[in-house]
């Protein structure tokens, strides 16, 4: 069963982009810890990388890989292999390589310099977001027919999840500031994996601020065991659902 993903992985490693990405993450993380004597400040910068760069790279890399391996997919399709298996193998290969890049590039420096609760929250969020955006990118690629469209779509999605969505949330918060929106914002956060990951890290990093105001609500909710399960659950859904739709679309697609 792991034969196909192995070839995908092999192909990705041959392209060397993934190695460059790993090195980039490693050097950036390391230099952040080196530059700031206070590791919490380095963690803050790392968090920004995880929330902004990671989704972007995952999306773009996956999309480009998908279109570059179109030939491979075609070749496999003429073999007695199910489409589902082919696509899932592609996903496994890409996800695995991006994930190991992240774990080596960011994981090692974090474990070396700051193996704290915040550190583990960072790694959990980074790993989840890598998988989520790989999955989303597969959906975007399967839907759009040509490479340019696919990459454009992926960029749009990135823009939406990292920026536009939060803008809309702020707009809603201000438009309905007279209403009790605490629970509602909780729900809103779940609808965006980037926000969910951010809140998860914040609970470790900014626990003091979160205990003030309505923040206590988030702390009570996300800080509890149920909150952790909830976060893992929603992240898993964010990985599975786009991938599942992608497989369905791929099954019906003409190649």
């Amino acid at each position, binding site marked *: 069963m792991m034969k196909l993903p192995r070839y995908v992985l092999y192909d990705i490693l041959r392209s060397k982009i993934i190695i460059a990405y790993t090195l980039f993450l490693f050097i950036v993380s390391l230099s952040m810890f080196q530059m700031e004597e*206070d590791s919490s400040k380095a963690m803050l910068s790392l968090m920004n990388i995880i929330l902004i760069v990671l989704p972007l790279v995952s999306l773009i890399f996956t999309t480009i890989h998908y279109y570059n391996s179109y030939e491979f997919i075609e070749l496999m399709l003429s073999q007695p292999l199910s489409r589902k298996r082919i696509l899932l193998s592609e996903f496994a290969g890409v996800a695995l390589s991006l994930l190991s890049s992240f774990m080596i590039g960011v994981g090692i420096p974090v474990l070396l310099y700051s193996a704290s609760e915040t550190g583990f929250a960072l790694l959990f969020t980074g790993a989840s977001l890598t998988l989520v955006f790989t999955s989303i990118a597969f959906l975007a690629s399967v839907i759009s027919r040509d490479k340019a469209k696919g990459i454009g779509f992926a960029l749009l999605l990135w823009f939406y999840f*990292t920026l536009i969505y939060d803008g809309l949330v*702020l707009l809603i918060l201000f438009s309905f*500031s007279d209403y009790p929106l*605490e629970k509602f914002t909780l729900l809103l956060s779940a609808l965006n994996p980037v926000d969910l990951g951010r809140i998860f890290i914040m609970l470790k990093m900014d626990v003091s601020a979160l*205990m003030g*105001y309505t923040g*206590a609500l988030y702390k009570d909710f996300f800080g509890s065991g149920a909150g952790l399960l909830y976060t893992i659950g929603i992240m898993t859904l964010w990985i599975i659902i786009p991938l599942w739709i992608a497989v369905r679309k791929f099954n019906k697609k003409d190649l």
Partner: protein
Amino acid sequence: MKFIAIIIILAFSVSSFGNTITVGKDKSITSISKGVALAKNGDTVKVYPGFYREGRITVTKQITLIGINFPVIDGQKKFENLVVSGSNIKIMGFHFIDSKHSSSEDYSAINIIDATNIIIENNKITNAHFGIHIANSTFCTVKGNDIVGQAVSEQSAGNGIHIWKSSHAFITNNHIQGHRDGIYFEFVTDSEIRNNKSENNIRYGLHFMFSHNNYYAYNTFRKNGAGVAVMYTHHVRMEHNIFEQNWGTASYAILLKDITDSWIINNQFISNTIGIFMEGCNRIDVKKNIFSKNGWAMKVQANCVDNVITNNNFKSNTFDISTNGTMVSSSFEYNYWDKYEGYDLNKDGIGDITYHPVSMYSMIIEQNPNALILLRSFMVTLLDKAEKALPTLTPENLVDRKPKMKPFQL
């Protein structure tokens, strides 16, 4: 020389201590009350270990009451354990348990009233309503006591050390937990609170009202429901204290309300929801403090005037300063801000460009607390950067024109 000194000390001690009366379950005197009744001024009453259930014990003579190995004085939840009134009384080495509780009266384990020169030392007080209650007294020393309450709600609980309308109190080396307020001062002047640890109290670790010319130093206030409150007071010195993990919706390491001419120096504020909250404060020096990992290091309301915030370290706080208005007339200078991104071309240790400690996002949160959910999002980062480049919303005079490049070292 040594010899002479010993002679003097011996002579002094003999004359002041007088006789010793022993109380114990297997002694001729079995109750403390009786021992106290038999004692004359200057006598010492020694109490051997045991369980003493005598209702309310009253001490008015100038005696020393010493417990050996913590004899227990049980209030049976029906009585105040000990009432002290008069002068030159010393109570030490007892374990007071289960004093009378009430939601309307201030019952306490040790009640000191209309007294002077009292020393309460090395006692344990458990499950009292009020631990030590001092009223209308002068020169009382409370030292090395361990006061543990089991307070559940603010209404039903009493304070650990409660002092009212007194002066020259000296509260030192005590440990207080589980009460409403750890230490409570009202109309108390010229007193000192030093080296105490007040934690896990329902409301404030230390609560000060109308208490002028006091000094508190080297205390630790941890995990209190609302931190420390100092109100309607002038000339307070707060030095070398540690305030940490005071978390909550309305929790402040220090709440300063209508405080004037006071000093906050060399304190550490770590992991509090709000480090210092200032309202109606004038002429306070906030100097050489460390603010680290707080939600908000300081909230300075617009009605504060002429405060000087200088030489502090601000590190890893979610927000450094926040305010509710646009006019701020306190000065910020020579502080170290870890969020400062300026440069120092002439290498004098002072950043060449002004630092704006109030972020745009903190202003947004003042207006809409729910927006806290967007903290550290890309959008908020962009907003803050834009605001830094072109300040429009944040108060333009709340700035540090001389930000330090390096934190000061303790």
